[in-house]
């Protein structure tokens, strides 16, 4: 399972960065979504996958006596998902506004900020 998830993470990273480097700014926002999902999966994997092992200490003991699922990466992902959701929402609105004002979705046309004025 970890190998499959690792490969999916790699694909999401590659696809996200590829889409961010395309010239269309709509594809930029798709790249943003894919990239942040890839990062979330990576954090999920960094806690190691274990099935059916809740992070509970049995009442008879003071420490963990067997392997357990680490809950922290899941808490981290939850935070990261919320944040990246906000960023994606902003990206989509920004792209729409930029298209309305600039009348183009080609990044190569966005060069008025580089002109000397």
């Amino acid at each position, binding site marked *: 399972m970890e190998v499959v998830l690792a490969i999916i993470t790699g694909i999401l990273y590659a696809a996200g960065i590829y889409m*961010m480097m395309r010239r269309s*700014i709509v594809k*930029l926002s798709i790249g*943003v979504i894919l*990239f*942040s999902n890839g*990062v979330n999966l*990576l*954090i999920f*994997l*960094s*806690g*190691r996958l274990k099935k059916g092992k809740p992070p509970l200490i049995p009442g008879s003991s003071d420490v963990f006596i067997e392997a357990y699922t*680490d809950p*922290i*990466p899941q808490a*981290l992902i939850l*935070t*990261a998902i919320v*944040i990246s959701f*906000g*960023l994606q929402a*902003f*990206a989509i609105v*920004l*792209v729409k*506004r*930029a298209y309305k*004002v*600039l009348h183009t979705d080609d*990044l190569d046309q*966005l*060069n*008025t*900020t*580089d002109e*000397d*004025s």
Partner: protein
Amino acid sequence: MMENLVIWPLAVHFFFSLILMFGWKNIKLQKNVTIIGNSVSLAVAIYLFINIYQNGTQTLAAGGWEAPFGIVFVSDLFAATLVLLTAISGFAVSIFTVVSVMNARLRFGFFSVYHFLLLGLNGAFLTGDIFNLYVWFEIIIISSFVLISIGGEKNQLEGAVKYFALNFMASMIFLTGLGLLYGLTGTLNMADLSVKIANLESRSLVDICAVLFFVGFGIKSAVFPLYFWLPASYHTPPSAVSAIFGGLLTKVGVYALIRVFTLIFIEDPFLQTFILAIAFFTIISGAFGALINNNLRKIFSYLIICHIGFIIGGLGVYTELALAGALFYLVHDIMVKTNIYLISGLIYRLKGNNNIKQLGNI
């Protein structure tokens, strides 16, 4: 009351940005409230600084959870100094904004977002937990996206697209490094990380994490090959916004670099040579960029890059004296960069133009 002093600079800004949301339509009220808010935060920051200066480092465990498990806020002298500088620049820029920025731009919750930006900056300076640092960074960049695109002019939106794309990428690279680091060590507390990293066997993975952190913070602080978003976007918003960006946003990246590379990834000859080389090229390219431009604010943007190079250079040399010099320079740089952007705003007001070829006889 007193033991919670570390959280106060955050609480003040949070409180005032919530208050400002209730006066969404009333810009006059918002102007008054934001000046009061920044005065209060300046007073709190001065009090915090004096307290830390006399009594030494203070920590606060959020919710009473002890250090390696819960989130801690740590205020040492370095963090307290930067919080003080944030408060001073925030206060100055808020006054400048109130008198200089057009009301049309201030309508959509400008001051509320401004307080959130300062909240994020203070949080990033005071936190002692590396994931919490990521969260504060996100608060900073989301607020800065709003501030840079509010007003919706043509070149502003263009700058915002470029600024968004690269800063988003930086955050994600930082988060990748953070995930790998957690996988290696199983902790997120910075002080705990520095102990556990030192005991790790696989140095190559630690080096990969270090480089990911360097790239992530490097994009945010605009070092040599990664700075192109900065001159493309910093001259587009009103100069009050540029001032707070130029003074503090890149410096928070530098602060994070200094924190991470003096506390977590220490004593690595490869990284030090790497950082020194980057610093060298940053200084050179920033200076050349400033020489060939005619737009005053673009020149200042390149000067920011150039001077980031000096601070990173101090980190690369990595002796006690070099680090002290870098921090000393950082303190001045925040003040000076905020000021020169405010002055460029004044010049724009006098002449209606920022092209130095047409700026004679001031």
